[in-house]
């Protein structure tokens, strides 16, 4: 484990240094969050959908905004750069599993961007909004203590799931030598299917089963449903199991794809 923990920690600490980026991201996400909350409020005023109360939809929005950096809509730029410049050669020289090494590094990269942003968002939406007299628009606490705990574990799994997705983007980048096309394809898919654009429960009823089982739901929708206490007991464990299943499946796919990409890899330049 030692090489992987070291790779995670080093990337995590390195990314934490970008304070301005975190702050700028937070401001943008507050702005968009505010717009989404107002749109939802207007939408609910014309007749509430049965599937989700307004307070939940608002809390969902703040969580989604806080966890925006968790979504796998782009590959790790460091990987893209190392592929373009050929420094990827050095990654091949480490006596460790190449997939696991990149996975650990990618997890550190995501975690370091998520944690400051979600902390800022919680301060803003949980604490400051009620103080400003906008309690109706605030981020509400979890349904129960147990729901909060399940949601926390699920968020941890969402991090791993996101890393497994980002790894697929990284590997595609390594195979194609460029990240732009891949990232452009990934973004809309992730934003809609994770629930970031709109809670999945608000999408058409006939799609619900499929929406819940597809892998992107584990990035956001499942943790938030656990937070609201929609799943409890065995169902909650089942939800975590579903996330774990997708992590394992995507990691296995990534591992195999990486082997193939590395076989064909030409190290660029000199």
């Amino acid at each position: 484990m030692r090489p992987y923990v070291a790779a995670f920690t080093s990337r995590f600490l390195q990314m934490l240094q970008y304070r301005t980026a975190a702050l700028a991201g937070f401001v943008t996400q507050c702005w968009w969050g505010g717009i989404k909350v107002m749109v939802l409020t207007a939408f609910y005023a014309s007749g509430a959908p049965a599937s989700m109360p307004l307070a939940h939809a608002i809390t969902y929005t703040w969580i989604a905004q806080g966890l925006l950096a968790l979504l796998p809509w782009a590959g790790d730029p460091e990987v893209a750069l190392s592929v373009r410049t050929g420094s990827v050669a050095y990654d091949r020289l480490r006596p460790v599993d190449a997939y696991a090494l990149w996975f650990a590094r990618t997890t550190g990269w995501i975690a370091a961007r998520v944690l400051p942003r979600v902390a800022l968002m919680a301060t803003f939406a949980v604490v400051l909004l009620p103080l400003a007299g906008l309690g109706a628009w605030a981020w509400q606490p979890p349904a129960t203590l147990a729901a909060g705990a399940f949601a926390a574990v699920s968020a941890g799994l969402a991090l791993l799931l996101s890393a497994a997705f980002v790894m697929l983007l990284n590997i595609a980048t390594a195979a194609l030598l460029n990240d732009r096309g891949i990232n452009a394809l990934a973004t809309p898919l992730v934003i809609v299917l994770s629930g970031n654009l709109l809670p999945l429960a608000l999408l058409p009823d006939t799609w619900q089963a499929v929406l819940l089982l597809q892998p992107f739901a584990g990035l956001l929708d499942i943790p938030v449903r656990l937070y609201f206490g929609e799943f409890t007991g065995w169902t909650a464990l089942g939800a975590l199991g579903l996330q774990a299943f997708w992590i394992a499946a995507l990691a296995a796919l990534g591992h195999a794809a990486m082997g193939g990409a590395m076989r064909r890899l030409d190290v660029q330049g000199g």
Partner: protein
Amino acid sequence: MPHVLVERLVKSYRIAERDPGLWGAVRGIVHRRNRTVEALSGVTFSLERGELLGLIGPNGAGKSTTIKILAGILRPDGGRVEVDGRHPFDDRERHVGRIGVVFGQRTQLWWDLPVGEGFDLLRDIYRVDPVRYRRTRDELVAMLQLERLLDQPVRQLSLGQRMRAEIAAALLHEPELLFLDEPTIGLDAPSKLAVRDFVKRANRERGATVLLTTHDMHDIEALAERVIIIGHGRVLADSPVDALRTQVLAQRRLVVDFDGTPPGTFDLPGTDLVERDGRTVVFGFDPATSSAPALIARLVANHAVADIHLEGLSIEEVISRFYAMHGAGEA
């Protein structure tokens, strides 16, 4: 058994091509052309434990490709490669823990991390025992004079400083086999000397087997006992450096700028006229048989000379002479 064994190694790259200009770009959308370039077409050599081998050849000759295959980064298309009985690509994880690699044109240290933290990260990635690591690191830091660089981020180092740090980074896990791909490229004279001195010590004192590629003949003269010249993906010559020295490297050039039009013929025994361009005439000679001071004295006594300087052979000339000497033909 040799430490490194390479037999009839073959590797080709596929290169996407397109016609120039706008029309070419448009055509490229619907019609793709690929060309196969043979980087290595049957390279064979072996390396004994503790040897220091120099690999030279023009750009694109296949030097780096050979190193990348030996390091397990690239998969060979054909032939046999064994390092200590391991197959570099297939046994990659086991293999790379026991080799150290420096690519002069890339960096393996993390751009934004201080040098010392990069070293610590490598310690963890290579799972080096902490006590051993501290000893090796302190030794390397002292030998390569890195004390004052440990706290600096890699991006702020000069090229010479970075290369010293890179070399230390490649040796932290005490590899028994070291690949150095153009380690002195772009370095100033003192940095080149420091790198050469260090490589020599790593080879002599630690007994590391070293495979070095370079464009600088001085690297070869200072370091290697044996040299392989590679060109067109083939081994053109494999010879001890001493032989190279007496046969080729001994050649010198005397470049003379005359004051006025130079005469048609010269009375300079032991030289041949290599080139004539306006007022400048280049003579070739072998310092073992003709002495430079005597030649110069003779020239100055008989002709009006504006300037004189001496040159060694460039690596390109050495290589083309080797082509000629070993009958490889196409130079």
